[in-house]
């Protein structure tokens, strides 16, 4: 389609030059609900070329089963005005739609200007379970774009907790883009594409890459402390539970555009792995509350066994300050603070003391950060594990509902 091609290039230029109008992208299939999204993700695992729909009531990449790799990239808007910001967000969705579906790459040829696609996936880019999840930080709702009155009710800058050692350059951000896929190169292709399409409007603030272990064992993947992590997560297939835990509803005083969205917490939590490795297994298990081999709660046999705190009221089996017990005491009062975790491990070089910089990119979704994530965080304050884990960055974000159809884009309800 040479005619379309010419028009498309001009459109991209027009955006980069600051003009707003971006045409609609490719025709797209359907509106997928969360169940369908999860289902398509499942089947994508066996048939890797099946895309995970970008469109849906909710954004993909939230209930979608975690693939092997992720990038969390925070951006700040340098768009001069609201229309430019809207154009940038529209471009994000248009590019994300193409990236997640898979496409025939335009790798460039003599006389055609800068290479249109990075080409790092070759001429045929397959979906590879790619999801692009877009979220907004509280700073986007300052006085720059007149969005203050439309701020999601519970959105605020990330709290600094007593055990944190935050690095300012790796905190917060106007826009969070979470990319997940099976292959790292798929993610890097997507990141380069999305950044290029929004150059001059979204400036990179910080980024971190995460991964999960090769699925070799059953059950939850292991974190870099060597323990199974994520066992107590609520079931994503339980729609009613997801409505309680994850999705913002219309009855909570939230602005209408936010309904169907969710609050995202991202935390870069460094693990002091050398120190941790110098601790006896039994001590580690008492700090975590699980068996290191099986992942079962201490004194239980299997990973998903109930820790059964009622029979252990004094913490003889699972100490009262064990991580899993503080995080989720399983009392009626604390069950309303459950969160949907979707973290990835990270590793990135050495620090000045020669120690490895690795740990967890903690990520969780919820309907109310204070009632859920922060309540958990407060219970965890001062736990024995804090000597081995150091939160160094991250932010609070709000992931709006998904793009409704092929014309829609994530954030349209906020900015259109």
């Amino acid at each position, binding site marked *: 389609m040479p005619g379309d091609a010419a028009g498309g290039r001009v459109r991209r230029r027009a955006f980069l030059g600051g003009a707003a109008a971006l045409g609609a992208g490719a025709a797209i299939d359907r509106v997928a609900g969360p169940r369908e999204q999860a289902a398509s993700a499942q089947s994508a695992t066996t048939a890797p070329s099946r895309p995970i729909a970008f469109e849906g009531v909710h954004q993909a990449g939230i209930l979608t089963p975690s693939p092997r790799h992720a990038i969390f990239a925070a951006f700040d808007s340098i768009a001069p005005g609201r229309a430019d910001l809207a154009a940038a967000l529209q471009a994000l969705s248009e590019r994300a739609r193409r990236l997640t579906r898979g496409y025939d790459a335009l790798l460039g040829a003599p006389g055609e200007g800068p290479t249109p696609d990075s080409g790092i996936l070759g*001429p045929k880019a397959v979906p590879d379970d790619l999801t692009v999840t877009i979220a907004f930080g509280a700073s986007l709702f300052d006085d720059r774009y007149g969005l203050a009155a439309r701020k999601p009710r519970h959105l605020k800058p990330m709290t600094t907790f007593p055990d944190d050692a935050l690095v300012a350059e790796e905190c917060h951000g106007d826009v969070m883009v979470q990319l997940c896929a099976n292959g790292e190169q798929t993610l890097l292709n997507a990141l380069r594409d999305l950044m290029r399409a929004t150059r001059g409007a979204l400036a990179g603030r910080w980024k971190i890459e995460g991964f999960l272990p090769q699925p070799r064992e059953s059950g939850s993947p292991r974190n870099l402390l060597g323990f199974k992590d994520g066992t107590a997560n609520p079931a994503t297939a339980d729609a009613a539970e997801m409505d309680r835990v994850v999705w913002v509803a219309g009855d909570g005083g939230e602005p209408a555009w936010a309904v169907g969205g969710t609050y995202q917490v991202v935390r870069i939590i460094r693990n002091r792995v050398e120190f941790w490795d110098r601790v006896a297994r039994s001590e580690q298990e008492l700090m975590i509350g699980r068996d290191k081999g099986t992942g079962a709660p201490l004194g239980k046999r299997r990973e998903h066994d109930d820790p059964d705190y009622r029979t252990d009221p004094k913490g003889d089996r699972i100490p009262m300050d064990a991580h899993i017990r503080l995080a989720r005491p399983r009392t009626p009062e604390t069950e309303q603070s459950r969160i949907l975790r979707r973290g990835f491990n990270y590793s990135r070089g050495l620090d000045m003391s020669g120690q490895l910089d690795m740990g967890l990119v903690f990520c969780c979704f919820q309907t109310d950060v204070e009632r859920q994530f922060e309540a958990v965080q407060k219970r965890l304050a001062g736990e024995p594990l804090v000597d081995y884990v150091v939160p160094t960055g991250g932010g609070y974000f709000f992931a709006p509902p998904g793009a409704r159809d092929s014309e829609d884009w994530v954030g349209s309800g906020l900015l259109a």
Partner: protein
Amino acid sequence: MLRRLAPGAAVLLAVALAGCGGGSQKKAENPPAQPYSKRSTAPGVVARVTPADYRRPIADYRRYVRRRLGTLGAQVGVLRAAIARDDLSGARAAWMRADATYESIGAAYGAFGDLDAAVNGRPDGLPGGVHSQDFTGLHRVELALWERRSTHDAARPAADLARAVARMRAKMATLEIDPLEYSLRAHEILEDGIHLQLSGQASPWSGSALVALRAEVDGTRVVLDTLTPLISRRDASNALPQARRALRRLSTALTQLERGDGTLPRWDALSQRDRELVDGLAAGAAEQLAYVPELIDPRPARPAQRPFGESG
């Protein structure tokens, strides 16, 4: 220093990748969301640019460089005088002006060859780094004036610098600027600014990246001005006006960072938000400028090749 892949490298890469497999653009199920326009230099529409078309632009640019080198010579004289009277802050101010002047003639660097390294060389790539005997020129003086806070240490490299600038001025009479290289500089001066200045690598001691970037933006505009008659006739997708708009946004942002006395703050003293703004606008301008050189490619048309992504 401007560096670039050999001009044919992108094409070679494309050919190499083409062997990887058979995407077919014609049969694409998904209309491309970021396709490119048909080339604006299509034969029969506007004639291709030839090397002869560059005579006038390059002659104009050479006159500009000659004037700037005259200015640079005078500024280096002021620098040496300040050093001689042990006036550290005067020497620093003079250095800033001289460095900015040199950054404003980025399209001539390649033509100066080794002389460019004598004026603008950096310790990277030298065995021994800053201690190397071959580390000389503006940045050696910078090291003395900022890191070592020593006019004494600056005296000899400043004298070397003055000699190198004098040799440059003498060389102007015979300086040859290659048309292809000149066309690429329209885009790449700013790439250089992003890569070397905004990374903090070029002027780590003085922190003068913003001053240098401002000079590079000005220098880019000079190149674009000389090339405008060639570009405009072939610029169906308005690459040039958009590049100029992006440069204006960047310039405006730099102006807004100026302090009361008109000087720019150290690059490493900027807030994260301000740094992101400059980084983002510079990258945005580079994205636009990247379309320019190909419009005025002075090389003969290449024989038709299989477009990339189409299998034969």
